């Protein structure tokens, strides 16, 4: 695929930093902005952030790896998160978890080979009265039946 020349990763990251650097404790807002713009925290981003924020690479790496949100590989086009916490366990979350893994042929944290879906687990989405709950990108679904899960996993939908 050819595309127009894009800004270098470095330029992109430096302009994200410029936007957030005056915030107190700027690293987390910056990492969220990187996730938003690039979809993941490419390992190449870490030295740039370290340089911009006057931190060691180890410090930045430590923060990136501490939080579940900051993945270091490109996610699929759609991210499906299945809630596996207690309230959803009580209404059949384990079955949905098995169903999703079997259907996509991946385990939690993995992306399907065609890059369509990343499957993740999550512990509570704040929808515990009408579970089981599933999140697709930023959209929440409640009372998810096996049939509805199939529809949510259907990449052509």
């Amino acid at each position, binding site marked *: 695929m050819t595309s127009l020349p894009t800004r270098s990763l470095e330029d992109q990251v430096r302009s994200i930093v410029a936007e957030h650097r005056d915030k107190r404790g700027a690293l987390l807002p910056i990492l969220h902005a990187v996730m938003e713009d690039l979809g993941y925290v490419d390992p190449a981003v870490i030295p740039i952030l370290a340089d911009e924020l006057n931190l060691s690479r180890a410090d930045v790496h430590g923060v990136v790896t*501490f939080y579940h949100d900051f993945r270091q590989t490109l996610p699929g086009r759609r991210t499906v998160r299945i809630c596996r916490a207690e309230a959803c366990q009580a209404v059949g979350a384990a079955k949905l978890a098995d169903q999703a893994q079997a259907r996509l042929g991946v385990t939690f944290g993995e992306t399907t080979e065609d890059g369509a879906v990343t499957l993740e687990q999550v*512990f509570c989405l704040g929808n515990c009265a*009408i579970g089981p709950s599933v999140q697709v990108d930023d959209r929440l679904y409640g009372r998810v039946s096996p049939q509805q899960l199939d529809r949510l996993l259907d990449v052509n939908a």
Partner: protein
Amino acid sequence: MSGPDETVTVYVPRDSAARSVGADEVAEGVAATAAGRPIRVVRTGSRGMLWLEPLVEVATAAGRIAYGPVAPEDVEELVAAGMLDGAEHRLRLGPVEDIDWLRDQTRVTFARVGVVDPLSAEDYTAHGGMAGLRRALSLTPEEVVAEVTESGLRGRGGAGFPAGIKWKTVQQAESALKFVCCNADEGDSGTFADRMLMEGDPFTLIEGMTIAAWAAGAQEGYIYIRSEYPDAVATLRTAIEIAYTRGWLGRNILGSELSFDLFVRVGGGAYICGEETSMLESLEGKRGMVRAKPPIPALEGLFGKPTVVNNVLTLGSVPMILADGAEAFARHGVGRSRGTQVFQLGGNVARGGIVETAFGITLGELVEGYGGGTRSGRPVRTVQVGGPLGAYLPTSRFDLPMDYEAFAAANAMVGHGGVVVFDDTVDMAGQARFAMEFCAAESCGKCTPCRIGAVRGVEVIDRIVAGEDRPANLKLLNDLCDLMTEGSLCAMGGLTPMPVKSALAHFPGDFGTTTEEQR
């Protein structure tokens, strides 16, 4: 009743739980179907009757008439049946405030949730908003602290520490810079009240934090919201912008000498960041490693400055306390548990949602009365109260009154008020194993009993269930639990034994053992 030419107001929640079961499609359907008839669709928070979502309300001369649960495909039929005039239908529930589930509650913190448009400043003031802040600003900071102390308000985040005492410590600390931080990490499974208040009445939280800033002498505030709550993040960010334009935030708030800036920060998907010192580390842009106490955050908190850290519901209760007085709040409740508590019914429950009521209601009244038993229709076997670190209780303890002290005496905790119901298909050894697994996954890693102990805990439970040298392994599990309780720096490792030991004590059969064998 409104005639065919008068504009009809229809309320459909924008709460993410309601949206998760189709509220957006219902709202669009109502607007589209009513073509020809002037109609105004207002997106509110949720009333908290979550099993009835999407719940639609229509304004009539007889009050707001509720219909629910309304599926998107029901809309056309409902409108044809005369829903816009409040007509009969199998989904009609009558005037919403007469539904006994709601009527029997005492809505204080949640008074406006589901009633108002969350992002309408006019609605907010028309329903009593800003009265608390106005009164606070007419008092000295010392008087505000005294009022909060007298109300008996205790932290709603789990530990139940008196809010007034914390505020006083920050107030008396000498520093040119102080902070107010709101803990909106709400990681406990079975809890969603913080989210619903933020999505349904965000100005209440902003007002509560501003009052805290006045009382404590703080200049800046941060709301730390978990990333799993994108709707709450968006709602609060918009509400903060509106508050600035109204002079409710920023310089010289409401013409007073108070200046206060407020920011939203988003978490990173780590449960431990709900622990207050871990949250402060995270707000500083670091790994969420728990800090040793002392120093307490009230003296050395965010960036080492004196900091008020309170839960969303704690801060959200403050405007009412200031507006109506400490007495009005303290009148509710029992013993040292004053005011109302926002209980949350979840899991396998027929009627789940928000039950705000005075402390002292029994566990059974909540689960059987409000909850109506299980959703599956099978018998209730256990409930977990207070989140993943809370105890599993059998139905024989349904007599327990919901108050901090009574629960502590029963080796349990009220925590953030979450009650998760399980039916008789639950495997309690599996739940105990999960508690250890969760601790192993979410431990910040600072202390060995938590980091390593939880991993060992999973293995030992597996051996017990497999029947390998059961007496020895049961003893090992008990010792391990004691070690975690005594040797952990924070309640993550310290309280994980609570669900494990309670499951074992009340349901030994699920571990293939008897109570006798455990001795």
